[in-house]
């Protein structure tokens, strides 16, 4: 089996003309989120693998970041003064790759090769091969410590660029997050924002049924963070909040979301963590999302 677009050889990804530009327009942001969701469904069906539930819950957060908040240049993805972003819940690579490609980091068609032999786009973000990826994630509990290092580095260098990290809620059961949370508050990292995709599910069950996280906001507060509890599917409100700067404390945004958001038979259902939709289900999903 060779990749349909890569012709059986690993090729380098190159920047391209963005499908969508950075915007402040609420309707435009909502439209982009729909485009991302459609791409996720097609991508996962083509690969016959992926983590569709968490992809659809994190879509609006990534859309707000990449199409409004982040100061980045897809044509120059390693420019030193760029804002930094880490997708700590790296299993949601299909959402991440979709967003990066629509923003112009590489051709949207390249995402068709997701997880195919010799594709640069494997199941988890790979910073060696994918422009725009800052860290190799996938093993849970790595993103926040890396983000604390980035934000600390900016401080030491006297730079004003910002660091954002998206965490899974189940992922917060890894202790490394709380070591990092302590360090971030201790260092007064107001240039750091952690967004928790609070869809209340992990792989096998609800977070509260597995290893309870609540009261989650209080936990971050007790660690010294500035905490915001928001609707994680309101793209423009997210864009607005994440765009704001100026605290002397690290900021935790607890984004209330639903796994499988936007597809009736997937929404809020734990078994869609990594199930693959059938061809008929894809039809229904695409129709529902495009509405």
């Amino acid at each position: 089996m060779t990749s349909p677009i890569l012709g059986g050889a690993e090729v380098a990804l190159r920047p391209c003309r963005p499908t969508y530009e950075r915007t402040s327009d609420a309707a435009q942001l909502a439209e982009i989120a729909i485009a991302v969701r459609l791409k996720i469904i097609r991508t996962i069906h083509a690969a016959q693998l992926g983590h569709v539930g968490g992809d659809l819950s994190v879509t609006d957060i990534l859309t707000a970041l990449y199409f409004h908040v982040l100061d980045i240049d897809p044509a120059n993805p390693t420019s030193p003064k760029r804002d930094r972003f880490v997708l700590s819940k790296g299993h949601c690579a299909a959402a991440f790759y979709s967003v990066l490609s629509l923003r112009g980091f590489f051709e949207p068609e390249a995402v068709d090769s997701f997880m195919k032999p010799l594709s640069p786009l494997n199941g988890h973000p790979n910073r060696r091969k994918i422009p725009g990826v800052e860290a190799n994630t996938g093993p849970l509990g790595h993103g926040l410590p890396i983000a604390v290092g980035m934000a600390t580095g900016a401080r030491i260098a006297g730079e004003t660029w910002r660091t954002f990290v998206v965490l899974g809620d189940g992922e917060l059961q890894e202790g490394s997050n709380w070591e990092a949370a302590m360090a971030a508050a201790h260092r007064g990292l107001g240039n750091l924002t952690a967004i928790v995709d609070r869809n209340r599910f992990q792989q096998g069950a609800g977070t509260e049924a597995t290893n309870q996280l609540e009261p989650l906001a209080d936990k971050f507060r007790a660690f010294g963070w500035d905490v915001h509890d928001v609707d994680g599917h309101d793209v423009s409100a997210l864009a607005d909040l994440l765009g704001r700067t100026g605290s002397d404390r690290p900021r935790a945004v607890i984004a209330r979301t639903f796994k499988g958001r936007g597809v009736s038979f997937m929404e809020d259902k734990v078994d869609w963590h990594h199930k693959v939709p059938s061809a008929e289900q894809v039809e229904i999903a695409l129709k529902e999302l495009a509405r």
Partner: protein
Amino acid sequence: MSAPEAAPKPGAAPTFDCRVAFAEELISLARADARIVAVCNDSIGSSNLGAFQKEFPDRLVNVGIAEQNMVGVGAGLANAGMIPFVCAAGPFLSGRATEQIKADCAYSQYPVVLCAMSPGLAYGELGPTHHSIEDFAWMRAIPDLTVMAPADPDETRGAVRWAAGAGRPIYMRIPRFKIPAVTTGGFTPGRIATLTEGSDVTIAAIGTMVSRALEAAKRLGEAGISARVLNVSTLKPLDEETILKAARETGAIVTAEEAVSGGGLGGAVAELVAQHHPVPMRILGVPAFAPTGDTQFLLDHFGLNAAGIEAAARALLKIRGDA
């Protein structure tokens, strides 16, 4: 995600996902012994513990996504008189919790059975973060830890049964990549089974590589080369006697493992023969972070198949001058 399988060939032997044998054996042990408990990390599905949970809801401890905690809890359960089977995807069990495995289980001599699910390249397309290929080297470095890798469902059953009563810390791989049945003698701890006698070259294989080694031996046999196939189901402690006998009698050894090509089976055999009976060797394993691809694609990519093993054996005979 369903378990990966080699493209089924017509008339080919049936293949098995060893997690099925693992779960059945664990449940039957748990029925007979109330000290058997399972510990996992949000991995009830991927560890095939659903039926165990149903029958023994109070004896399944799912700590959530927290592998260091998981192994520590396992050690504590052992202290409390339980026999914990700690189950998680190989890369995160062996990697994330290495220090807990060392200090809390091995150094403390607690009878914790660490079960590395879906090891090697089983999570092919999920990428190197999810490949458990360093575990043989990492785990082999820890004193007092027994390291095992059964080669098929029967051996998986035997290994699980032995581990439950062994009273010592054990790290065990449970294969997910579907493999044929290759053993007949059950599992004997610490003993290497000689699956085919042979006098020209030895192929020492472990876990999922054993069936491929047998296939390679068959091909070599057709060309008049007599290959001895060893199933190294206990990597540590290594059955030195059987390896050295093979070194003496065949004069050349190929090792094959679904693991990095240093520090694991190849390393163990090389360390032994270099000190006691040096013979030329080829160490087959995974030499680099893998490109994207499914399990079968990656095994072929790295030559971890019958053709690759056969070529390595022929290369050894060539340098020895008899081919």
